[in-house]
C-alpha cells in the first residue's frame, strides 16, 4: 500500500510553491475525497494551483497527488485521494482512500459532493461522518444542479447531517474556493466537536452494533480507527480488512470475531438478506430522508446535453469510426505538430554540445570533455528532444480524460474487449500505455477482479509507450525512404496493440482463466475541459518525463558512458590497430580519431559484454553495438538512442535526427536490422520503472519475473522470425 507519510510531505519540487513552511505556520493535513467524476480534481486544482506534485515513479511509486496552500495562517498539505463511491475493501482505490483517512489521521477531510447526484455522493459522505473524522462537505457544480432545477436548503441539510459545514462551490469557475478554505481552517482549529450522527440501521442491527462495540471497547485505544461503533458496523458488513485489524489489535479478537459471525448469521435469518445489503439500504434511507426535506427538484429534464452528445458519440454504428478517428488525430498531432519544437530543442543541445566541446582543443581525448559532451549532454538531450511529442500526446490524453470521452471509449470497445476476455475498463489503461506504462499500470486499479487486473498489467508494456518513439524515429529516419517512415512507425504501434490483444487472449485462457468479471462503470457527464486543468494534467505527466531525463536517464547515461569508456586501452595494446582498421573500414573515410575511439569502445566493459552477447543476438541481426545500447535501454528505453550515438563513435551532434548519426547508421545497418531492433524494443524487456511499479502493484516478484521473461522470450522469437524470414527473402540489403 501507499505510504501515507510520503504523500503528505511536500515533495522536492513544487513549481511556484512557497519554499518551506515558516516556523510560525501550523501544518495541517487535508484529505480531499469524493466520488469519481464529482469534480474533485477541479477543486483540487483550484485549491492548490500549480503547487502540486505527484509521487516519483522510478523506485517508489506513490500515486497520491498532493499540493500546498497557505490560508489564514495555516499551512495546508492537501492530499487528493482516489475517487471512490464507498469505503469498502472491495477495490484498491477505496482501500487506499480509507487507509489514508484511518492511519494518516488527516486533520480535515474535505468530501466533494456532486450536487446533481447528491444522494449518491452523500453515501460516501455519510460514511466519513460515521468514521467521525473532522469533515467539510462541498456541494460542487451547484450551478449545473440549479440549471437542472434542483433547489437546496443548505442550512437545513447541514443540520440534519449533524451540523457538518456544507459549502456550495463551482470548481471549474473557481467559485466557493475561499469558502472551502475558510471552512477547512475553521474545522482544523475547532476543538473536536461531539457530533455523533449515529444512523439508525433498525433495532436488530443497532443492537448487534452496540453489543460488538461493547466487546471492542476495552481495546479501543489500540484499535485503528479508535471508533468501536464504526469497527462493529464494518464487522457486520463482513469487511475482511477490518477483521484483520481487529485480530491484530484486540486481546480477545477470537471472541469478537465469533460474535460478529454469529450476529451476521442471526441478522441474515431475521432480515432475509445479507446485513451488508440491508445496511447499504438503510444508509440510503437516512440520506433520502435528509434530502427529501431539503432538496427540491422543480423540473425534470429527460434529455440532458450529455445524453444528446452520447446519441452521436456512442452510436452503435458511428461510435467506433469516431473513436478511431480521434485516436488517429491524437497520433497525427503527436508526430506532426511535435516536429517543429523538436528541431529547435535538437539544435539547442547540438549547440550546447559544441559549445562545451569547444572548450577543449579539437580532437582532444579529455575524459571530462567526453563525459560532459557524450555522456551528459547527448544522453539527456537525446531524450528531451522528444518532450514536445510527449507533451502533445499527454495533452490529448488529458483532454480525452477530462472531457469524459475516455469512459465512452471503454464503452464503445467493450464488445470487442469481451472477445479477448477483458472488458471495456481495461481499455483505458491501454490508451494511457501509449504515453507511459507506469501510469497505465496504476490505472488498472479501477479493475476489481485481480485476474482482469493482472492480465491487463501483463499486456500493458506492449502498448508502444512514448519512450519507444525516439527509437523508431532514429531508425526509420536513417534507414527508410521518406514515404515509408510514417507507415513503418504506425505499423509498430499496431503490432504492439495486436500483440497485446493476442497475449490477453492467451493469458485469459491459460494463466488467468475464469469468468469475465461483471462490468460496471459510470459514464461521467461531458464537460468542457478547462484550459488550466488540462495544462496542469499535461504538465504533471510531462514533468515526470523531464524529471526522468534529469535523474534516471542522467545517471544511466553516466554509468553507460563509464562502461563504454573504461577500461581504456593502452596505446601499445596489440588489439588496437586491428580494431581501428576494422572500425575505420566500417566507418568509411572517417577521421583516425573515430577509429581509435571505436577500438577503445570494443575494449570497454560495455563493448565486451556486447561482444559476449553476440552469439545470442546474431540470429536477430544485432551486433555488439546494438547489444550495448540495449543494456542501457533496460534502464529507460530512451537511453537506447543516446547509447547508439555513443557506440557509433560519434563525438558531436548525436540526436535521433542528426545527420551524422543517420550516416553512421546507414553505413552499419540494413533496414531489416533496423526493423528487427524496433520489434525487439517494442515487445521485449519492460524497463526498470515498469518492473518497479509492476512489483508494487502486483505485490509479488513472481509476476514481475514471469512478465519480463514471457515478454522478452516473445520478443526474441518475433524478432528472430522477422530477421530470418526477411533475410531469406533477400531483404537484408540496403533499400
Amino acid at each position, binding site marked *: 500500500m501507499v505510504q501515507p507519510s510520503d504523500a503528505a510531505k511536500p515533495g522536492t519540487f513544487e513549481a511556484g510553491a512557497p519554499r518551506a513552511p515558516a516556523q510560525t505556520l501550523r501544518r495541517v493535513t487535508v484529505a480531499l475525497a469524493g466520488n469519481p467524476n464529482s469534480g474533485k480534481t477541479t477543486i483540487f486544482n483550484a485549491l492548490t494551483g500549480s503547487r502540486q506534485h505527484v509521487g516519483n515513479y522510478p523506485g517508489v511509486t506513490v500515486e497520491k497527488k498532493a499540493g500546498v496552500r497557505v490560508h489564514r495562517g495555516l499551512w495546508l498539505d492537501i492530499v487528493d485521494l482516489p475517487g471512490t*463511491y*464507498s469505503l*469498502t475493501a*472491495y*477495490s484498491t482505490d477505496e482501500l487506499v482512500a480509507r487507509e489514508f483517512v484511518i492511519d494518516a489521521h488527516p486533520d480535515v477531510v474535505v468530501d466533494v459532493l*456532486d450536487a*446533481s*447526484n447528491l*444522494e*449518491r455522493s452523500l*453515501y*460516501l459522505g455519510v460514511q466519513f461522518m460515521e468514521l467521525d473524522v473532522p469533515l467539510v462537505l462541498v456541494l460542487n457544480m451547484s450551478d449545473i444542479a440549479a440549471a*437542472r432545477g434542483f433547489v437546496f436548503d443548505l442550512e437545513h441539510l447541514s443540520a440534519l447531517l449533524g451540523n457538518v459545514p456544507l459549502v456550495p462551490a463551482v470548481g471549474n469557475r473557481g467559485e466557493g474556493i475561499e469558502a472551502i478554505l475558510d471552512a477547512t481552517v475553521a474545522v482544523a482549529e475547532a476543538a473536536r466537536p461531539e457530533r455523533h450522527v449515529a444512523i439508525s440501521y433498525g433495532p436488530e442491527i443497532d443492537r448487534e452494533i452496540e453489543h460488538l462495540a461493547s466487546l471492542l471497547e476495552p481495546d479501543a485505544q489500540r484499535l485503528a480507527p479508535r471508533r468501536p461503533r464504526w469497527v462493529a458496523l464494518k464487522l457486520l*458488513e*463482513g469487511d475482511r480488512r477490518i477483521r484483520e485489524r481487529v485480530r491484530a489489535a484486540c486481546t480477545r479478537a477470537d471472541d469478537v470475531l465469533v460474535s460478529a459471525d454469529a450476529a451476521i448469521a442471526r441478522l441474515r435469518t431475521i432480515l432475509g438478506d*445479507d446485513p*451488508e*445489503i440491508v445496511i*447499504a*439500504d438503510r444508509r*440510503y434511507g437516512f440520506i433520502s430522508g435528509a434530502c427529501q426535506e431539503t432538496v427540491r427538484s422543480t423540473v425534470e429534464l429527460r434529455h*440532458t446535453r*450529455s*445524453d444528446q452528445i*452520447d446519441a452521436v458519440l*456512442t452510436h*452503435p454504428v458511428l461510435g467506433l469510426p469516431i473513436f478511431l478517428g480521434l485516436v488517429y488525430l491524437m497520433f497525427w498531432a503527436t508526430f506532426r505538430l511535435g516536429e517543429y519544437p523538436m528541431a529547435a530543442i535538437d539544435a539547442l543541445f547540438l549547440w550546447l554540445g559544441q559549445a562545451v566541446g569547444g572548450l577543449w582543443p579539437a580532437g582532444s581525448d579529455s575524459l571530462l570533455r567526453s563525459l560532459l559532451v557524450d555522456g551528459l549532454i547527448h544522453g539527456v538531450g537525446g531524450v528531451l528532444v522528444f518532450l514536445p511529442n510527449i507533451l502533445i500526446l499527454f495533452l490529448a490524453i488529458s483532454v480525452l480524460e477530462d472531457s469524459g470521452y475516455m*469512459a465512452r471509449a*471503454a*464503452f464503445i470497445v*467493450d*464488445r470487442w474487449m*469481451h472477445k479477448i476476455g477483458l*472488458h*471495456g475498463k481495461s481499455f483505458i489503461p491501454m490508451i494511457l500505455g501509449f504515453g507511459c506504462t507506469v501510469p497505465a499500470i496504476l490505472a488498472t486499479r479501477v479493475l*476489481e477482479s485481480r485476474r482482469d487486473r493482472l492480465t491487463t498489467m501483463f499486456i500493458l508494456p506492449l502498448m508502444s509507450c512514448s519512450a519507444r518513439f525516439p527509437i523508431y524515429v532514429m531508425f526509420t529516419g536513417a534507414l527508410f525512404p521518406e514515404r515509408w517512415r510514417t507507415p513503418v512507425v504506425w505499423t509498430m504501434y499496431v503490432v504492439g496493440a495486436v500483440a497485446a490483444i493476442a497475449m490477453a487472449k492467451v493469458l485469459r485462457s491459460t494463466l488467468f482463466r475464469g469468468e*469475465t468479471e*461483471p*462490468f*460496471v*462503470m*459510470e*459514464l461521467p*457527464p461531458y464537460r468542457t475541459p478547462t484550459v488550466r486543468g488540462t495544462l496542469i494534467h499535461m504538465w504533471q505527466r510531462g514533468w515526470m518525463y523531464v524529471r526522468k531525463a534529469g535523474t534516471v536517464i542522467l545517471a544511466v547515461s553516466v554509468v553507460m558512458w563509464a562502461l563504454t569508456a573504461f577500461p581504456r586501452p593502452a596505446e601499445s595494446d596489440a588489439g588496437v590497430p586491428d580494431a581501428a582498421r576494422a572500425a575505420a573500414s566500417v566507418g568509411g573515410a572517417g577521421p583516425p580519431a573515430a577509429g581509435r575511439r571505436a577500438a577503445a569502445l570494443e575494449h570497454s566493459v560495455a563493448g565486451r559484454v556486447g561482444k559476449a552477447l553476440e552469439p545470442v543476438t546474431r540470429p536477430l541481426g544485432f551486433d555488439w553495438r546494438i547489444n550495448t545500447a540495449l543494456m542501457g535501454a533496460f534502464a529507460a528505453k530512451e537511453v537506447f538512442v543516446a547509447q547508439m550515438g555513443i557506440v557509433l563513435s560519434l563525438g558531436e551532434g548525436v540526436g535521433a535526427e542528426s545527420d551524422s548519426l543517420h550516416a553512421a547508421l546507414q553505413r552499419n545497418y540494413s533496414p531489416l536490422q533496423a526493423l528487427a531492433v524496433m520489434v525487439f524494443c517494442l515487445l521485449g524487456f519492460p524497463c526498470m520503472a515498469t518492473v518497479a511499479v509492476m512489483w508494487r502493484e502486483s505485490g509479488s516478484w513472481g509476476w514481475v519475473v514471469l512478465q519480463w521473461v514471457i515478454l522478452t522470450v516473445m520478443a526474441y522469437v518475433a524478432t528472430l522470425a522477422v530477421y530470418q524470414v526477411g533475410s531469406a527473402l533477400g531483404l537484408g540489403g540496403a533499400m
Partner: protein
Amino acid sequence: MTYDGTDRPVAPVALDTLPDGAHARLVTVSGGPGLRSRLAAMGLRTGVAIRVVHNGGRGPFVVAAGEARIVLGRGMARKVLVVPNGSGEA
C-alpha cells in the same frame, strides 16, 4: 428471487429485457454481497428509479439512475431485476 420490492404484485424482470427509454424501479440484484454493495454505492440500490438509456441488443447497456449514467455489461444487466413502470412515472 420472486419477492417484489414494491407494493404492487408485479413479477420482476431482468433489466436487459427492457427497451430504450423504458422506466423501471430496481428490485434486487442477484449476485454476491460484494457486487451488490458496489452497485448500491454507485447508486443502483433497491427502490431506485432507473431509465434504460441504451440497450443495443448486444454489447454493454446504459442505465440512468438520477443524474448518473451507468454502463453495465450485458451479463450484469441480466442480473438486475426490475419492475417496469408505465412511462413518465419514474
